[in-house]
């Protein structure tokens, strides 16, 4: 740990707890799960599931950029969402935002997310 492995950027919502936006190790960057909060206000964006998921991916993208990576270098993505009726919208938006080479993915329904968030997404990405 000769240099700081952690990344926090103003272009994503400020961490609301004891964690950083991203942490680098071994050629990979690990990113904290992002929800649909506006980076400027910290509030949830309006517009329901689709708006929240788009914003969450925007936040993920901003963090990856700050960490020296990008969406097209994501190795693995993980998505949690609350309402199974949002599955089709999740898949459609995900398909619009992620392109070849597509990452591996795990997604699942959960009982609840922080402060009523409808969806969140994290990832592990390559730095090279």
């Amino acid at each position: 740990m000769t240099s700081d492995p952690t990344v926090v950027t103003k272009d994503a919502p400020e961490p609301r707890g004891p964690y950083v936006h991203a942490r680098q190790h071994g050629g990979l960057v690990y990113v904290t799960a992002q929800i649909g909060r506006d980076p400027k206000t910290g509030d949830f964006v309006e517009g329901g599931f689709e708006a929240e998921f788009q914003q969450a991916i925007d936040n993920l993208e901003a963090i990856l950029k700050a960490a020296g990576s990008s969406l097209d270098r994501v190795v693995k993505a993980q998505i949690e969402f609350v309402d199974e009726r949002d599955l089709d919208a999740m898949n459609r938006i995900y398909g619009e935002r992620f392109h070849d080479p597509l990452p591996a993915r795990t997604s699942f329904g959960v009982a609840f997310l922080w402060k009523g968030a409808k969806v969140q997404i994290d990832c592990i990405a390559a730095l090279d």
Partner: protein
Amino acid sequence: MSSHRGVVSRHGPQPTGSYPHAHVHGGMVWVTAQAGRDPGDGELVPGGIAGQLSQAIDNLEAILEDCASSLDRVVRTQIMYTDPDDADQIDALCARRFHAPLPVRTTWGVKFLAAEPGSEVVRVQIDCVAELR
């Protein structure tokens, strides 16, 4: 596969299934999710969410130390919990136990974690991936 090593620590609650406490590979240690179980008797500790999470992090820390790692080398944590009202306490407790350089984190609410014989239920569990010393 000689670079892979499963680790069962004397200092964590003994695994109750087909898994070790941790798996070491490639300069990293992957730690099995820990609940608030006493390492001595495996029983869930009292004290609600605070007691359980504190013990779970104690267990995580003991396992990490046995694997030549530590809490400040944790790269990523995942926390699963059963009551949305516990979120603030979880943050407060993690803030007391994790220090810079902080890890990244993913948390979510689950329907249940483990069935217990008594009235207490497992309310939280935490796993991690960490760098080795």
